[in-house]
């Protein structure tokens, strides 16, 4: 009887740990000091600007067997790509797995330009992704969560809740249950990917959300998801859906 009571109440207390209510969500930018926020918002001070310059050059470079540039099809990036990154990852209406922005850019390269795919996390792919993401700054994250997307979002959430690694931690234990507290000397953020690809002072460079996820998994002493793997994109999809409606601040600056 006692055991049953204990077990029942323990289960209840576990169930009480839940998703962050929409109105209580805070981006990493809101947890930063004013200096870093100013650096992020000023295009001439944001270090990601160097990647954006590269991205603009790549946008108009004709290449591949088709001899076409991004601009040949899409024209001015500031108009054609406005709001596009806010919708990624997207789910294929035919029921295929979700595709993130990097994969979409590579699909354009291999099918339209007939050029080799760029290596994931390469400088050129980060530059192009950053350029496209910049055109969604200030716009709300708008992930399609219709019937075709639901099973993939649920699969991503299952990964978010899964305890992994030698330290047996889940993403949710820190970023749903303990945000605002401290791990070592660092404040634990809620983990909303509003600003990727972003410039991290720790990296001294621009990096993707998947790179950040790999950092966390290494800390959990888990084997990180490979770049572009099904798990990485599913987790990315769930995290972006979890941040739905929050404004994009890509390319962001973070400590």
């Amino acid at each position, binding site marked *: *009887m*006692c*055991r049953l*009571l*204990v077990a029942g*109440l*323990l289960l*209840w*207390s*576990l169930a*009480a*740990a*839940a998703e962050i209510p929409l109105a209580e969500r*805070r981006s990493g930018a*809101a*947890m*930063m*000091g004013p200096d870093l926020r100013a650096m992020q918002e000023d295009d001439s001070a944001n270090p990601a600007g160097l990647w954006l310059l590269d991205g603009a050059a790549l946008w108009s470079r004709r290449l591949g067997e088709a001899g076409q540039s991004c601009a040949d099809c899409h024209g001015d990036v500031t108009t054609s790509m406005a709001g596009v990154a806010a919708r990624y990852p997207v789910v294929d209406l035919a029921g295929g797995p979700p595709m993130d922005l990097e994969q979409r850019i590579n699909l354009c390269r291999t099918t339209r330009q007939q050029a080799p795919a760029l290596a994931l996390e390469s400088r050129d792919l980060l530059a192009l992704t950053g350029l496209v993401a910049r055109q969604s700054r200030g716009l709300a994250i708008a992930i399609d969560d219709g019937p075709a997307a639901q099973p993939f979002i649920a699969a991503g959430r299952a990964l978010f809740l*899964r*305890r*992994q*690694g*030698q*330290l*047996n*931690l889940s993403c949710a*234990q*820190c970023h749903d*249950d*303990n*945000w*605002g*507290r*401290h*791990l*070592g*000397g660092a*404040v634990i*953020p809620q983990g909303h990917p509003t600003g990727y690809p972003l410039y991290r002072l720790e990296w001294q460079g621009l990096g993707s959300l998947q790179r950040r996820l790999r950092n966390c998994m*290494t800390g959990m*002493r*888990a*084997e*990180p998801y490979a770049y572009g793997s099904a798990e990485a994109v599913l987790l990315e999809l769930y995290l972006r859906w979890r941040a739905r409606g929050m404004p994009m601040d890509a390319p962001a600056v973070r400590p």
Partner: protein
Amino acid sequence: MAGSRPSPPKCSASVAVVALVLAAALPCLAGEEPRDAIPDSLTGRSGDPQRGRAIVLDRQHGLCPLCHGGLATGRLATGRSPQGDLGPDLSGVGRRWTAGQLRLRIVDPSRLDPGTIMPSYARTEGLARVAPAFSGRPILTAEQIEDVVAFLTTLQ
């Protein structure tokens, strides 16, 4: 301050509930095998508190300051304490718990709270996707756990 919680987190309510439930359940557990402690040393010997102190304070080895306060670990360059606050403060922990109770909390804290964020320091099985460098290895060996227990009992 920016980034701090406006109100106490939900999980502290959960922790309080769990603590209350455990306290209420103790009398009915008293007649059963001890569930709240591992009375015997894992190695059959006492640990070395000096070695234990070094393990506890090492953020790469014992990892304790990542989650627990109450350990003298100096300051970061930012002036902030390098100690986390995900777990209980360890000041005076040797006064609150016996060696056997401390041992259980290091070896298998999930026996007291299945949802605890604290990992088992002895477990090598039933873990998902462990990085190859750590696969098949516990966070601490039995001897190291005994050293840590010996050190924690000195925190009076």
